[in-house]
């Protein structure tokens, strides 16, 4: 027969298992990637655009009253931030390239993996992802683009954290009716 002491031990053990179960069902998002070093490399005055969207706003966007087109994509996201830097000066562009390489190395050291690296004439595209250890689900995405082929050469940094569906992101990106990266008129 089960005595009270044994029953209470089982109960306490069960309580300890509950948070562990929660932790497994909801893996933590990758931490927000700070773009400060990129901004510092080119100077604050050369920031063309800076975007930071916290979780609360993303939740509002995905809720009722939000844009239905992007609501489904941002529903699992925890943060979005982006910086676009002006690289019209060659020296500044060199500093930005170095800062981008340093940031990439730093992220790799923290467990981020390179998903894509494309080097074309005058343009470099890096895509890094942070995956959840067990489920291999993508929990963080960093896009680093240095494009000097355009009339307005720029470094584009974008960071998204949360549950990310790359296929959906790519698909929705096409249908967003926003001009392509090289055609973005950011001024």
């Amino acid at each position, binding site marked *: 027969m089960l005595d009270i002491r044994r029953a209470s031990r089982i109960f306490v053990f069960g309580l300890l298992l509950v948070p562990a179960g929660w932790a497994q069902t909801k893996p933590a998002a990758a931490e927000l990637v700070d773009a400060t070093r990129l901004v510092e490399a080119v100077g604050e005055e050369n920031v063309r*655009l800076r*975007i930071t*969207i916290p979780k609360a*706003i*993303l939740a*509002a*966007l995905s809720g009722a*009253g*939000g*844009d239905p087109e*992007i609501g489904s*994509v*941002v529903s699992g996201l925890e943060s*979005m*931030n*982006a910086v676009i830097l002006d690289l019209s000066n060659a020296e500044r562009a060199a500093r930005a390239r170095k800062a981008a390489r340093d940031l990439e190395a730093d992220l790799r050291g923290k467990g981020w*993996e*390179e*998903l*894509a*690296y*494309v*080097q*074309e004439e005058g343009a470099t*595209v890096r*895509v890094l*992802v942070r*995956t959840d250890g067990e489920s*291999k689900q*993508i929990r963080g*995405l960093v*896009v680093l*683009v240095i494009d000097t082929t355009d009339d307005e050469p720029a470094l*584009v940094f*974008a960071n*998204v954290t949360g549950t990310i569906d*790359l*296929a959906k*992101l*790519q*698909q*929705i*990106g*096409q249908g*967003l009716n*926003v*001009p*392509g*990266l090289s055609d*973005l008129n950011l001024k």
Partner: protein
Amino acid sequence: MSSIERLECVRARRLAHARLDGDVLAPEDAALLDTHLAGCEPCRVLGVELAEIQRELRGIPVPGLDAAVLERVWGSTSRAGTAARGSVARRSWRVAAAAAGLTLALVGLPWIIGERREREAVRDAEMRRATVEARLVLAVAGSALRRAERAVTEDVLVRGIGAALDRTPIRWSGAARSRPTRGDNGA
């Protein structure tokens, strides 16, 4: 300050109040007040402060009084007064309370409604801004992914899968799982 001076101050302040209320002072009172204010700094400061308070009070918009509402309040207070048959002091208190309630309702309600509308307008503006920003970040990320995909496709067509993987360690399904590193032919 002597008792005579204090008496002068008391009289001068009474005259100052009267003048601020729009009363036309007798010439000798006006002269007395002006002479006193010229020589008494505390009264001069008080006069300026009172004038400022009055100016600010005049700046508060006075809502139009709805005749039907006034009629209802008047009717209810009259009935209450008649039924109670209380003392004059009690009736006065009720009338004062009704007047205070009416004033609060007339002044406070539009203010509360205005505040709420303002908050909703700010929220709507924030949501619109966040929507545009989220679209831009998604477009940037989607564009980078498409660009990487296009580069890989072109490379595969032109130089074969080995060269493409050498240049771009990209995986579209099961992202970041057992990817070859740069320099590894893979195929």
